């Protein structure tokens, strides 16, 4: 099945309400529908056609069409199609039928466009603030086109606190976060605990939302965005870098030279290697098993060095430009990388064997943090989360990009859906990554690294790109625009979906299992907003206000 077949299936039922369709290639499908048909169509695609929910996007399209736009992206993984269901909304404030009761995975996406764009999802089961900071006034939506990118609303109220739900009867609240030694990044889980058992939780995150998407559509240009995109994540940045470039290339129908496609694949797999080794290390640290933590980091280090040799950086590779890549893999680098892989494979084989036979680790991880296939479907979980529950999805195979269509590899799955299964999936995926890099190095095509781009990129085109990050599918949605920058760029990092599964995973578990359950999704929140100064001599406390901190932070370095 391809995009045309999917379109035919949908059209059989919905022809009268489909306004326009667009099939740029066999793997992409764009459908414009009447607002009142959105709910039913999403239900049909999600339930009857069994598509996976990817993300919802809100857009202020008033400067162009005078309307607002809502898009829901779905993936037909078996059929290799990414599809976007779009509807234009009139009226102010714009309102759209919520689909979260039918498609639970859409919960956060709808709350996000309610916060940022001010599109009201009517009938949403839990329409609570998700992204905006506590003190942000209601009714101000920063992602609207008429809102300046660098403005703070005048009635911003620093002292307003978040309105948390009441815990159920008989439970005490154990705050997990905003700062916790195992989180590394600020995020707040309010756990409702009954004895040592967690009965539920409320999540408050997005404490350091950096408005990168806003920068993308108002300040940065096409080729600057990959740099910003890379900084979305401190571990899998290259994924966002590539995903963005691919989305623009798809929208503008650019062809990337084969050598660039192969190099992208190699760098993405290098990133997966270091990320999976990092996770195994951190997971073991959470369990108090520091020996494997240290060994894992020792084995990982040569990967960081070779990445630095290729790109100049251990972590932020700055790999992509629109239409190609910056860095070449010379014959010398190629043979050195081969050597690194050989050592890695040998050492990791020993680790994998040791882990597989370790009863002690199994005791702490089996049956813990279970996300079964049903939860995977409902919450739209992806990556190792899904594969550990036996759901065989992998964007590298399902929606091939870069050079993944040319290489052989297995999609590792496990049964059980618990932390143990996720540990095994990640441990074994390391070998698949090694296999992929070797194939790419063996068949690295000659040729240019970048496609020449003579003309300006066309305006108003849509691009979808899914890249399999170490944590799951990262999805980028781009609408090309004027002034050498996209009109809208929406990023859905894998943790965005995976985190939505956490409340169900930790329910009725021991509080001791909370950290490893959360760590097992390999969470990637992002860094810091307030601090307190104590004057020792006078003993006086002084809390810096957000405004003062911003001034301090930006002093002298602020660029227009």
């Amino acid at each position, binding site marked *: 099945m391809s995009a045309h077949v999917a379109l035919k299936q949908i059209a059989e039922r919905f022809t009268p309400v489909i306004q326009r369709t667009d099939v740029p290639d066999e793997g992409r499908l764009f459908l414009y529908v009447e607002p009142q048909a959105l709910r039913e169509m999403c239900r049909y695609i999600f339930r009857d056609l069994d598509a996976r929910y990817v993300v919802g996007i809100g857009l202020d399209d008033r400067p162009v069409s005078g309307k607002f736009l809502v898009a829901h992206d779905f993936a037909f993984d078996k059929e290799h199609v990414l599809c976007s269901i779009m509807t234009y909304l009139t009226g102010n404030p714009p309102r759209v039928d919520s689909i979260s009761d039918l498609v639970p995975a859409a919960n956060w996406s709808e709350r996000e466009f309610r916060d940022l764009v001010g599109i009201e999802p009517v009938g949403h089961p839990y329409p609570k603030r998700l992204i905006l900071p506590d003190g942000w006034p209601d009714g101000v939506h920063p992602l609207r086109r008429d809102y300046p990118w660098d403005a703070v609303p005048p009635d911003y109220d620093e002292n307003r606190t978040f309105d948390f739900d009441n815990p159920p009867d008989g439970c005490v609240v154990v705050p997990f976060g905003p700062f916790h030694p195992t989180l590394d990044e600020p995020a707040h889980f309010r756990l409702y605990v009954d004895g040592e058992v967690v009965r539920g939780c409320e999540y408050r995150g997005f404490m350091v939302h950096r408005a990168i998407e806003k920068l993308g559509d108002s300040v940065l240009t096409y080729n600057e965005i990959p740099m910003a995109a890379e900084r979305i994540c401190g571990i899998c940045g290259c994924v966002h870098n590539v995903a963005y470039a691919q989305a623009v290339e798809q929208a503008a129908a650019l062809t990337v030279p084969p050598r660039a496609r192969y190099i992208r694949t190699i760098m993405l797999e290098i990133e997966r290697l270091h990320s999976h080794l990092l996770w195994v290390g951190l997971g073991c640290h959470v369990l108090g098993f520091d020996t494997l933590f240290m060994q894992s980091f*020792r084995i990982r280090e040569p990967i960081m060095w070779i990445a630095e040799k290729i790109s100049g950086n251990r972590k932020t590779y700055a790999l992509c430009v629109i239409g190609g890549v910056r860095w070449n893999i010379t014959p010398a680098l190629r043979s050195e990388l081969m050597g690194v892989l050989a050592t890695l494979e040998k050492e990791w084989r020993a680790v994998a064997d040791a882990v597989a036979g370790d009863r002690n680790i199994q005791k702490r991880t089996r049956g813990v943090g279970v996300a079964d296939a049903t939860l995977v479907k409902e919450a739209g979980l992806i990556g190792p989360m899904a594969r550990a529950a036996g759901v065989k999805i992998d964007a590298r195979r399902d929606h091939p990009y870069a050079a993944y269509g040319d290489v052989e590899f297995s999609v590792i799955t496990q049964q059980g859906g618990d932390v143990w299964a996720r540990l095994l999936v990640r441990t074994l995926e390391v070998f698949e990554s090694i296999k992929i890099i070797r194939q790419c190095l063996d068949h690295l095509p000659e040729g240019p690294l970048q496609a020449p781009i003579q003309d300006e990129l066309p305006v108003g085109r849509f691009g979808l790109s899914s890249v399999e990050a170490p944590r799951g599918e990262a999805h980028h949605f781009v609408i090309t625009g004027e002034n050498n920058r996209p009109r809208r760029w929406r990023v859905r990092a894998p943790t965005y979906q995976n985190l939505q599964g956490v409340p169900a995973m930790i329910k009725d578990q021991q509080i001791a299992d909370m950290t490893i359950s959360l760590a097992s999704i390999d969470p990637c929140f992002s860094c810091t907003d307030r601090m307190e100064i104590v004057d020792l001599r006078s003993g006086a406390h002084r809390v810096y206000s957000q405004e003062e901190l911003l001034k301090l932070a930006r002093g002298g370095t602020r660029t227009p």
Partner: protein
Amino acid sequence: METSLAVRFLSGGMNIVLVLALAPLFEGILRKVTAKVQSRQGPPIWQPYYDLLKLLGKEDIESGESPAMQRFASWLSLAAILTLAVLVPMGTSPPLSGAADAYLLISILTLCGVSTMLAGLAAGSTYSLVGMSREMMSLMTLEPLMAVAVVVSMVHTRSMRLDAVLNGSAYVQAGLPLAGILMLGVAIFAFQALIGRLPFDIAEAETELMEGSMVEYSGPKLALFKFTHMAKLMVYGALLVSIFAPWGSGLPAPLNLLALLVKLLLLVLVVTLVAATHARYRIDQAIRYYGGLLGLSVVALLLALYGF
């Protein structure tokens, strides 16, 4: 064997000096060996001394719900471990053996755990309270274990005198000392938990509870707790050795001490390797584990009662 008061004071003082001086060294060895197992360089072997000195030199901050109790808990922990040191033979016979019996030993062992619980209570934060409740659960299953070990020795020697109990009493009776061997196994498997090391550092569990009961501690008070933690390894080790592996304690003065130190060093190496190769247990798993050991120790007690 009546010894003069002066000699007893002297040997008691020596035990305290010994623990104060050497406990951080054993900790240093433990850290260094752990580092080697983990392919790390590791801190210098003297690092625990520096750590303690640094903490002792810091400002003494009052915090938590009840600063007075917080202070008391830290002093109690140190006092308990040092009193224990005076009761356990280290080289010489137990210095205070005439003044105390085996019951006191068991009570003071309990005090060490109680001090941690008081610390958790004093902080009054959610995490410290969870740490406290875990400490309490461990205490309730571990203390009987220790008590049974001592009682088995009491049964063997038909005495409550410390010098009799703490001198290889596990093997005094004729024939194969079944109860003694069984208790030795139990004690070795419980040792890691008694001294609160991985995989049984459940009450502190940095990555879960942010140090649990210790969450509000800093500076000198933390130094006291840290020292107690280090000293536990040595004092509990000496206790284990004197009940189950007394060989060499009859040697003349410096040699018997040397024998003890060698045995402690071996024990530290075992503790290190176990800690470095295990992930932390969950409290319910740990309690089940202790429960199994407790069952075995009761069997040992029955065997001892029937003269095995």
